């Protein structure tokens, strides 16, 4: 298991290089010269030229990429073109908020998705199942920024119009958990729908298995059969979806944070796009990509915790990275 984790961390290196190459290339090809943005419209050609030299923008592409990557490895994600503050620091201030929002959204998605999904599978084709599937369809189809605006309309505008106070604040992050509720609900709805569908289909599959019949033949309560014997098996594909959704939530937070003026890293990146702060966009996207990869690693480890067959596989795996094997 440890060996597996270490191995996964080593795989991280090519992933990091790949992701930064993609992000860097996109930014490189984006029209607009960072030096011009840095100096503003009033700058003379000569000043811009000097700034380009200072920022190293006149070097060849690969050299620029190499030096950026070297910086990233040392924790230097570049500096904002407008404020000259380090991107990593700025992200680290805001990222915990985004993480919290994504985690809250995920918690809502997992609780609703798994509970309703299990219920739905046990009572397949019942009225409750139909309602749940309808919810799933709506949840997946409706874009979450629209859902966010509707949530603000209902809970903040109409509610305060009718009762004179607002149930949940519609923006900012001053009210603690209460201000987290609407954005988390907004963010979590579509994931809840996806988790629900996955749980339902996975449970339907598992409930047909022979070992469920064995469990029933033991005389176990149906509740135990469903939650102990079926759900643990059904969770394996659900975890994959939850992991992917978590990454999606980090990205989806960009819209939700904007709609709710939530002080997270997503909104920070959107603002950077608006002000054409290419260095922040580049560093911010790379940061989120790394966070996403880390979450994927956690998901893979979680598989092993749930499924003993995968655990044995991890154990059986030998080092197959040649330059490492030689050192051993």
């Amino acid at each position, binding site marked *: 298991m440890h060996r597996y984790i270490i191995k996964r961390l080593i795989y991280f290196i090519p992933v990091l290089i790949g992701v930064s190459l993609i992000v860097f290339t996109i930014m490189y090809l984006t029209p607009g010269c960072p030096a011009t943005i840095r100096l503003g419209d009033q700058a003379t050609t000569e000043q811009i030229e000097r700034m380009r030299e200072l920022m190293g923008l006149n070097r060849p592409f690969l050299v620029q990429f190499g030096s950026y990557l070297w910086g990233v490895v040392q924790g230097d994600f570049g500096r904002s073109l407008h404020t000259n503050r380090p991107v990593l620091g700025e992200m680290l201030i805001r990222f915990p908020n985004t993480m919290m929002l994504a985690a809250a959204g995920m918690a809502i998605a997992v609780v609703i998705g798994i509970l309703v999904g299990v219920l739905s599978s046990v009572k397949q084709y019942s009225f409750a199942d139909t309602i749940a599937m309808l919810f799933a369809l709506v949840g997946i189809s409706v874009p979450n920024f629209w859902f966010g605006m509707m949530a603000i309309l209902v809970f903040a505008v109409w509610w305060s119009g009718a009762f004179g106070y607002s149930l949940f604040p519609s923006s900012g992050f001053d009210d603690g958990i209460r201000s987290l509720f609407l954005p988390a609900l907004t963010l979590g709805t579509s994931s809840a729908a996806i988790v629900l569908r996955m749980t339902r289909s996975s449970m339907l599959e598992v409930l047909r*298995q022979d*070992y469920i019949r*064995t469990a029933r*033949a033991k005389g176990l309560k149906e509740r135990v059969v469903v939650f102990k*014997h079926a759900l*643990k*098996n059904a969770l394996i594909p659900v975890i994959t979806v939850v992991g992917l959704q978590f990454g999606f939530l980090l990205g989806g937070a960009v819209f939700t944070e904007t709609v709710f003026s939530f002080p997270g890293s997503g909104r920070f990146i959107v603002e950077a796009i608006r002000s054409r702060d290419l260095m922040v966009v580049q560093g911010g996207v790379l940061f989120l990509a790394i966070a996403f990869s880390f979450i994927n690693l956690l998901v893979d480890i979680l598989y092993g915790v749930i499924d*003993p*067959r995968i655990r*044995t596989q991890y154990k059986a795996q030998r080092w197959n990275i040649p330059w490492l094997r030689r050192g051993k």
Partner: protein
Amino acid sequence: MGNKLLEIKGLKVHYITEDGTVPAVDGIDMEIEEGETLGLVGETGAGKTTTALGIMNLVPDPPGKIVDGEIIFNGENLRTKSREAYRQIRGNKISMIFQDPMTSLNPVYTVFDQLTEVIKLHQKVGSGEALERAKEMLAKVGIPQERGEEYPHQFSGGMKQRVLIAIALACNPALLIADEPTTALDVTIQAQVLEVMKDLKKQFKMAMILITHDLGVVSEICEKVAIMYAGKIVEFADLESLFTNPSHPYTVGLFNSIPDPEEDVTELTPIKGLIPEPTELPPGCVFNPRCPDVMDICKGEFPETVELSPTHRVACYKYHKGIGGENK
């Protein structure tokens, strides 16, 4: 011996599908005494497994339904029992072993988990004592104790079936239903598993219903035999009279299809035709399209059962007074 343990009267289990009603078990009678072994023999699709699931009240519903009949176990009609009361019997007084050991154990729990679960459930003992009992049971089926901490995927098919036998016998049931326990295993392992079952049956003094299509196995283990065809029991007899005096044309066909090892056989003698489509059973005796001795009356109604001797009865017009050749 002598006490009736289980008596089934007119049991009907139907599967209600869109293509019509399938009378998988259509009015069967049988009885089994304490400590006795009954062989339930028939082709695939004859309704053997459905009969077993009917006794366990585990017929998948929908589409299956027990529509009529009585299942009297220890003097009590199980069909009037509540779900809760049935749970107390299942895995405790009546246990079942299934056909495919490869898929009948839950892959995410250890063997001990799955074995102690049923002991704790029915014997009302603590974890420590349950574990002790589990170890004893493993020893009885010939599995080293320390392997109890392993997961099912670390066991071979024969070992898994031994584990399933241990689970089924853990609460010392009065009746064990073994649904083709050796069909999925290879021949040498089959013999070993049968040996274990025979041995434990003696030790535990329990009755057993052995579902099989192997007449060789029947002759080794069983005291009574029920021959099933298309949802009906066509012949029911003690082992000796069935083997010396097979009476129903279907039973005769079954015996004829066994090649004689003494003779140089170049061609097998099958029963002509195929088992009928379950939704389109022929009128009258279900066997009439394939029967070599078919008469006009066979196409009218299903024949009443005739007693050839107190321990031998057969459902065939050949033995009806005034119809068949030999009036018995």
